[in-house]
């Protein structure tokens, strides 16, 4: 086709709401080459714009969509042989020479069906918006050929053939438009240009871009300006609103163009991709976009019925093979380059926003050196202190031993024990009991999953507890002060806090974790509200001058909070109060700050419900909230001033410092911290931070005093000793508050005052810092002095607790329990073991003061306390104990080493058979009375005495060889959570005289199975998992620098 004269029909389609329409018309009027015909499609009810003088405009009443508007114009006007359509939007204003250049190209490139201009920004014509697009080979990702906002320096002027370009302000041959059927409606306006251009190529035409022809494009559709009501325009204009439509358009494109066989896979892939992007959105803290991304595959599904028709149209109009457009499609490498380019641009923009001057840059570099040096020194000193205090633990861990203690139990807990505990909601301790929650076991699952298991990682947590707390505190104190000295001293004081040392020595894993995590929570909260300090530069200024609140930090605080309440539930209420108050002061980020409480609240959900049922404002309710999930032991109640100093009820004096009372020796760090806090108050510096620190400390004292005043571990009949609450977690709060207050007041004190005053302040601070450092060093020396009594009973121990024969029986499918007996002066003590040694790390089931499980208030399930009589019988070498033992699935008795009395008694009982003697105990097997079947966790007993054992773990079991009618007995207390099935149909529970779970098995049942399922527990478990996982993904600090890594 060649013609000296082309007919250009300009069509402006408007929804009648764009304020830019008059400007668009003006731009058309200003063209050096005006279009031959100008149709303006506008809704009937819209006000008609003013038309520039000399411009002939034909107004057409518009349809609902852009495509309908064009169709209406074309329907009324028959095609001209050389007619080109110039498709303008009401937000595209061509520069004066645009049409002339487009027409010139159209004349030259007669095969071109589309001749498209470069799109530039509406408000800045030097910035590019669009200069052609392409897509990947799969087609589900649109790739722009220029970076948005790239400065146009003519670098793309050579570009001509492209796969596609925006049809906005492009010249389109009328015959091709009619031949291809115009725009594809399935795209709903997003992606239809790409589809049309690709179709044009396949139909034997070209698509050409003319970089020198420029059109200003305001992108009203993209930014959602059209769909928003007029009230929302402006501030909340966000391109997020059209994201779902655009993304759906991309998938529709892929479905339309991919080989037919690939379509089902693409649909599946769209779900996978959406899930992946949703996770990324959480990481970016774009919670609104999570929904948009998750909705995409469903939208794709909704448009799926239109795909066959689209594909048919493509097939009909194609004259060229698919390989014709293959060179335009991009591969994985280009995609990655595009993403990387987007990240780099975002990073550059962030840098440009916060570009410091060269002088500031130098100071920042100096500060960074100081900071790294400080961190190095603090880490080294804290490690040295850890090694001085508990170096023997480290060597023991390295030689394959584990830490153990009466409260701690054994630390070599297998992963499956932790997992079964948290997943099932059934605590296997003792005879087992329904658990209130499984957060503590869940908290330790990662430690068990890592190489070395809990033996190594809990061991390291305790052995390096001082170092971990110090380093945590170092980072947290960075939000309060930039003074390396103040940070370092504060961090070490926090790490060496006496009650933290006590918790480590007692093996109180929960309070140790809480002490280590508390600084991270504080840091997250400060940064979430934007209250952290910038680096000190120049004369008392900070860089950056204003700190932006960080959503990732809020999620970090949320995660830390969840960990803290799982480890040490007593801190839920005080930290909740801190978050509520902090949020109230946080201004516009208040919701973000408050959101940091959500995961912890969900994790504590079962306990909150239990506390509510116990009477929301009673001591019982507080005892539930202050419960100890993990290792606990009774501790002496101390006066509040001792809590402030981090002291226990007895403080040993130091042999090296004979004149000093123990209170002063152990409380030296506390005294220094209190003195620093008093100085902070007196100085009047950083008043809000100091006040906040003091309030937190006050809350901590109340928490600690409240915790130690109630019984948080009630005797559960399974051997747990009663314990009141530990003052440690509250005292950690005191330490954090006071140290934080002192650190905040110390910020920039070096530059405070003038002249003599400044010199005096500097001298005084130097002396104070030296004194404080001296006290810290002296404290470590005193604590680690040879011969000083150990604070607690945690000690390295061999990981082999039970004789191998006994442990093997525990692991068999019959899941036998082991009863360990040991001599005492007045009789015998026993321990019922599910695992290799007493395990507290799986977390407590939690019982109320009356011994009923908190998960089942008012019920009194059978406990191992009922074994006492049988044990007494064993001790007297009497008869009949074996029946009780068999009834509760106890298959092996172990006489502890050195307990020769009980070993002698056991040797006399003919029903027991010796199965092994070693230096970890003498083992006897219990035989099932009247049957040759082994003892088991669960079995089916028939009327005639035949027994079939089930293969069990701690909460499920099954057998495939039932048969006769009988009773399924589970050697665990009856509970509504137990259910059993025979060949798939549920069994009726029957009463058992001993309180065990029992079910009637009908005759002929082959496959019999049972399991424990607690619906409430399951709901809370998943809710906690989702909340914590959300916080974990959200705390990845993507937002700050790479927030555009995933397109908006």
């Amino acid at each position, binding site marked *: 086709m060649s013609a000296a004269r082309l007919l250009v029909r300009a069509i402006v389609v408007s929804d009648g709401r764009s304020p830019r329409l008059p400007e668009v018309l003006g731009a058309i009027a200003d063209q050096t080459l005006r279009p031959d015909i100008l149709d303006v499609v506008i809704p009937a009810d819209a006000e008609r714009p003013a038309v520039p003088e000399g411009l002939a405009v034909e107004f057409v009443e518009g349809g609902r969509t852009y495509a309908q508007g064009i169709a209406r114009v074309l329907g009324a006007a028959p095609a001209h042989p050389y007619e080109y359509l110039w498709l303008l939007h009401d937000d595209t204003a061509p520069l004066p020479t645009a049409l002339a250049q487009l027409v010139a190209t159209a004349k030259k490139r007669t095969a071109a069906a589309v001749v498209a201009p470069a799109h530039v920004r509406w408000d800045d014509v030097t910035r590019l918006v669009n200069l052609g697009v392409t897509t990947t080979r799969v087609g589900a990702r649109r790739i722009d050929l220029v970076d948005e906002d790239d400065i146009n320096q003519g670098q793309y002027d050579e570009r001509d053939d492209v796969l596609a370009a925006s049809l906005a302000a492009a010249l389109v041959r009328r015959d091709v438009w009619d031949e291809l059927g115009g725009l594809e409606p399935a795209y709903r306006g997003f992606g239809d240009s790409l589809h049309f251009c690709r179709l044009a190529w396949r139909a034997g035409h070209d698509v050409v871009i003319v970089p020198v022809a420029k059109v200003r494009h305001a992108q009203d559709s993209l930014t959602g300006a059209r769909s928003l009501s007029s009230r929302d325009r402006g501030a909340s204009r966000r391109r997020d609103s059209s994201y779902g439509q655009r993304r759906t358009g991309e998938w529709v494109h892929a479905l339309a163009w991919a080989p037919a066989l690939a379509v089902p896979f693409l649909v599946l892939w769209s779900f996978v991709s959406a899930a992946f992007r949703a996770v990324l959105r959480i990481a970016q803290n774009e919670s609104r976009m999570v929904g948009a991304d998750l909705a995409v595959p469903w939208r794709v599904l909704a448009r799926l019925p239109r795909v066959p028709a689209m594909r048919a149209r493509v097939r009909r109009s194609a004259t060229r093979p698919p390989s014709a457009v293959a060179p335009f499609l991009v591969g994985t490498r280009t995609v990655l380059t595009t993403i990387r380019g987007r990240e780099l641009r975002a990073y550059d923009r962030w840098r440009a926003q916060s570009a410091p001057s060269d002088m500031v840059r130098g100071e920042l570099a100096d500060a960074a050196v100081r900071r790294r040096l400080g961190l190095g020194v603090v880490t080294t000193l804290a490690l040295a202190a850890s090694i001085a205090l508990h170096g023997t633990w480290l060597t023991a861990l390295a030689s394959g031993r584990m830490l*153990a203690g*009466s409260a*701690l*139990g*054994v630390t070599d807990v297998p992963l499956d024990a932790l997992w079964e505990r948290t997943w099932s909601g059934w605590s296997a301790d003792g005879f087992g009991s329904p658990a209130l929650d499984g957060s503590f076991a869940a908290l330790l699952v990662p430690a068990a999953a890592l190489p070395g298991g809990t033996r190594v990682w809990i061991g390291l947590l305790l052995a390096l507890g001082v170092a971990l707390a110090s380093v945590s505190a170092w980072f947290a104190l960075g939000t309060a002060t930039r003074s390396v000295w103040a940070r370092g001293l504060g961090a070490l004081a926090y790490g060496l806090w006496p009650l933290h040392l006590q918790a480590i020595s007692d093996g109180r894993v929960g309070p140790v974790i809480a002490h280590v995590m508390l600084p991270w929570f504080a840091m997250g909260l400060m940064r979430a509200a934007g209250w952290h300090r910038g680096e000190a530069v120049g004369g008392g200024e900070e860089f950056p001058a204003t700190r932006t609140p960080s959503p990732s930090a809020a999620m970090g605080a949320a995660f830390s909070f969840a960990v803290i309440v799982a480890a040490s539930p007593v801190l839920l209420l005080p930290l909740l109060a801190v978050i509520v108050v902090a949020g109230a002061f946080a201004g516009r980020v208040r919701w973000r700050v408050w959101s940091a409480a959500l995961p912890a609240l969900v994790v504590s959900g079962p306990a909150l419900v239990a506390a509510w049922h116990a009477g929301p404002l009673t001591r019982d309710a507080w005892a539930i909230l202050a419960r100890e999930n993990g290792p606990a032991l*009774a501790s002496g109640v101390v006066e*509040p001033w001792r809590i402030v100093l981090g002291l226990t009820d007895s403080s040993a004096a130091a042999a090296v410092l004979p004149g000093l009372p123990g209170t002063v020796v152990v409380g030296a760090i506390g005294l220094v911290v209190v003195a620093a806090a008093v100085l902070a*108050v007196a100085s009047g510096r950083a*008043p809000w931070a100091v*006040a906040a620190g*003091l309030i937190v*400390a*006050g*809350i901590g*004292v*109340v928490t600690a*005093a*409240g915790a*130690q*005043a*109630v*019984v948080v*571990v009630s*005797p559960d*009949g*399974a*051997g747990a000793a*009663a*314990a*009141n609450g530990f003052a440690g977690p509250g005292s950690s709060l005191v330490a954090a508050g006071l140290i934080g207050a002192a650190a905040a007041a110390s910020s920039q004190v070096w530059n405070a005052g003038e002249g003599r005053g400044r010199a005096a302040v500097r001298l005084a601070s130097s002396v104070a810092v030296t004194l404080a450092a001296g006290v810290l060093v002296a404290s470590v020396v005193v604590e680690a002095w040879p011969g000083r009594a150990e604070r607690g009973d945690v*000690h390295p121990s*061999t990981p*082999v*607790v039970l004789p191998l024969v006994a442990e093997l029986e525990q692991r068999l499918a019959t899941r036998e329990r082991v009863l360990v007996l040991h001599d005492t002066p*007045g*009789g*015998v*003590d*026993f*321990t019922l*073991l599910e695992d290799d040694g*007493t395990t507290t790390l799986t977390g407590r089931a939690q019982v109320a003061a009356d011994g009923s499980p908190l998960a089942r208030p008012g019920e009194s399930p059978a406990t191992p*306390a009922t074994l*006492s009589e049988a*044990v*007494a019988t064993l*001790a*007297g*070498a*009497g008869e009949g104990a074996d029946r009780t033992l068999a009834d509760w699935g106890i298959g092996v008795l172990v006489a*502890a*080493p*050195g307990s*020769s*009395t009980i070993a*002698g*008694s056991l*040797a*006399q009982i003919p029903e027991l058979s010796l199965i092994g003697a070693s230096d*970890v105990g003498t083992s006897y097997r219990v035989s099932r009375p009247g049957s040759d079947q082994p003892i088991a966790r669960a079995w089916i007993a028939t009327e005639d005495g035949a027994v079939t054992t089930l293969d069990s773990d701690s909460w499920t079991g099954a057998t495939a060889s039932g048969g006769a009618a009988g009773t399924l007995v589970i050697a665990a207390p009856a509970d509504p959570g137990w259910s059993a099935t025979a060949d798939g149909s549920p069994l009726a529970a029957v009463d058992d005289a001993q309180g065990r779970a029992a079910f009637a098995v009908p005759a002929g049942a082959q496959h019999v199975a049972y399991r424990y399922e607690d619906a409430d527990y399951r709901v809370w478990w998943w809710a906690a998992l989702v909340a914590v996982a959300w916080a974990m993904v959200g705390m990845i600090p993507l937002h700050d620098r790479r927030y555009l890594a995933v397109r908006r």
Partner: protein
Amino acid sequence: MIRRLVVLGAAAAAIVAVVASGRIPVDPPVDAAPYAGEVTPAVQPLACPGPVEVPVGEIDAGDPDLGSGSSDKTYQALGDGRSDAGAGFLARADAAASVERIGSGDVAGLAAATCLAPVRDQWLVGGSTSLGSSARLVLTNPTDASTEATVTFYGALGPLEERSVVSIAPGGQQDLLLEGTVAEVPALVVRVSATGAGVVAHLQDSRLDGFQPAGTDWVGRGAAPATALVVPGVGAGADATTTLRLMAPEGATADLTLVGDDGPVDWGGVSSLQLDPGVVTEVEVPQIDSGAIEIHADAPVVAAAMRSVPRPVTDGPAGAVERDLAWMPAQAVDGAEARSVVATDHVVAVTVHTASGGRFTLTDASGAVVAQQAMAAHTTATLPVAVAAGTVLTAEGRFAWSLELEDDPGFVATLVPRATGVETATVEVGQVPYVGPGAGS
């Protein structure tokens, strides 16, 4: 100004928190009380040590007067269901005993032993390892499980460091010459702690005075350490000597009372006897025809008395005397249960003590009264007994009693009854954590 107030307000709030926290009432944690179970151990056979052995062996010097052994020996083992256990025997009966008369040689005399049931912890007060004395500990295990006995010793200077650990097979017997372990201890107290169902311990106390036999007897276990004990049957003829041996494991102050047939007898110088921990103390008992010693202490003690009866040497140096001895272990005063003993040859009398008064009735197995006497509180009685050997004699009530054995030419021995009821024991059962050997509990 506001900033100042904020800080001071916060500081005041913190101080108020500290003060207020001190007023929170405290609930102390209370642990569940341990379970105290009464256990009835399985009935075990009684065990007797067997014949006495001559400490130096049976040396035949050709002259019956110089040989250590003797050809004039009668050994009587009584009790139903007897079976051998080493040199001794087991008896499945309520009561069993052995008595041996050796007419000449080093161990001339009567040696009687009451067969006993095994216990885990027993104290034997008696024996000596000084020059001329031999103490042979015989441990018999009547149970079906092997046991390990730990033997510890107490002397006049307190607990001795030496100890012996002996394993005894089921139904087996082990003997231990204590002079090989703790030599030159003139007054011994032996404690035997055994595992399992326990062990039966008897101590053969054999003494020589130069060439003259100074007596032999079996020392059986006495009452467990207690604050109130009675040693019955300390009465003897005018030339006999009686020695009370006392020991308080943890130290005690003991009051001793000598009681005769008509009530307490004056015994000067033994009120508030100070007993150092583990120190074996011996006290001479005044001569009395029929009597018993009541011991009251402020802490548990163990005790026994030894009677040494002289007789003229029939064929030896002028003025030399031979002796025989009899050990009378202390009995608990509070036991009212039936106690039985099997009468052997040579039984002549029963000596009884009562602290509370009442009628003492000794019956045989058919219920026929063998001896009886109405007694006032704190009196003793010696009642003649003439029954055939093998008769099981039983008495009930709060009486401490023993059978007296005598034979010419001045041989003496005693047989102590044993409680026939099965003793229940209290076992405290607790639950504790267990984290492996050598840790916890």
